[in-house]
């Protein structure tokens, strides 16, 4: 973000905005930024908290009136929103869907993932209708087709015609949006449910194992792009 700011100012376009990692911003010394203590992925603080988002924006806009720079100010409010589950756990997300007996139903990932996605589909459709918005749609394929692609990749080692990273991000968006309307849904229990309690989470971990064993360096490198570090550590601890 610092680079975009610097090169725009060189072109005569003034900039202000949000810094998430203060140390990075200090090191580059870009013209104007407001540092916030919010989690990575949430520069405006919290979803559906318009008053907080407006306060963040207002503070960043004030920086435009400073006479000299570089300017790096700290936003005075914290939002205590952890992303990864704490060791002592927290409020679990109640999933409205029964996924059956998982591996007892079928030994192959394709069937398990298809069953899970089919069960979530009505909840996804209801959720997107209520929000009138979706973030699903990187790949031109429906959730069941994407589940099939991932299952095939894990079962047979055959990567799909689309970048596997895009397939996974779409599946994660589909799963998360299916659960957003559940009472108590937040970043912690959504992430914990997705990665630890679903066939999708387990399939992505299995895929990572396959990728790490691939003979081609480019395929092996994909392994670092599919699983968050905290999830890898959580699986290792289990």
């Amino acid at each position: 973000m610092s680079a975009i700011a610097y090169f725009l100012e060189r072109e005569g376009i003034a900039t202000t905005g949000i810094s998430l990692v203060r140390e990075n911003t200090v090191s580059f010394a870009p013209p104007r930024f407001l540092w916030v203590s919010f989690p990575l992925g949430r520069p405006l603080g919290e979803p559906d908290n318009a008053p907080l988002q407006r306060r963040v924006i207002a503070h960043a806009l004030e920086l435009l009136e400073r006479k000299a720079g570089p300017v790096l100010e700290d936003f005075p409010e914290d939002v205590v929103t952890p992303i990864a589950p704490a060791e002592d756990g927290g409020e679990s997300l109640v999933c409205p869907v029964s996924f059956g007996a998982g591996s007892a139903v079928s030994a192959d990932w394709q069937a398990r993932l298809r069953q899970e996605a089919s069960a979530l589909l009505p909840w996804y459709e209801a959720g997107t209708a209520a929000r009138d918005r979706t973030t699903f749609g990187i790949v031109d394929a429906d959730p069941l087709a994407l589940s099939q692609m991932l299952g095939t990749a894990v079962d047979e080692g055959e990567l799909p015609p689309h970048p596997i990273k895009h397939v996974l991000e779409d599946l994660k968006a589909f799963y998360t949006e299916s659960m957003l309307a559940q009472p108590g849904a937040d970043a912690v229990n959504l992430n914990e449910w997705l990665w630890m309690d679903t066939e999708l989470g387990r399939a992505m971990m299995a895929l990572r194992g396959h990728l790490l064993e691939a003979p081609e360096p480019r395929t092996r490198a994909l392994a670092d792009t599919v699983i968050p570090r905290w999830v890898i550590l959580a699986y290792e601890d289990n």
Partner: protein
Amino acid sequence: MVRLSDLPDYEAAHLLAKNGEPFSPPAWVADTRPASDRKFVLITTAGIHPVGEEPFLSADASYRVLPGTPGVDFAMSHASVNFDRTGFQQDVNVVFPVDRFRELAAQGEVGALAEHHYSFMGAGLTAPEYESSVRALAPVLRREGVDTAFLTPV
């Protein structure tokens, strides 16, 4: 929270490895007009784009156009997996505050808002590798009368 002291050591080390050197020569647009006298564009490095349009690939310094009109769905194809996406999936304004800026423009808190906004993907590249894309975008912004950019990372 992104206080390095609050993060596990491995995450703090990963983030500190992204530090660089101060840009040289320094750049500073000497213009102290308030926001109410400016025309804004929103630029994010969150790696988002309208649903159905070309996603970002790894090590991609190009940008995507984000329509500023209501009712557009955005997807996120950012290469990194080590940040929270659930906030964006719930409310796009967490990374791309277009609804907030439309409200501010309607209230006169910001002078005007561009019709189009832009997303880069901040991952896998060094700062100088974005220069040519930003230099290509700048005249597009000037033609639309934009004088100020509001920037959000992810």
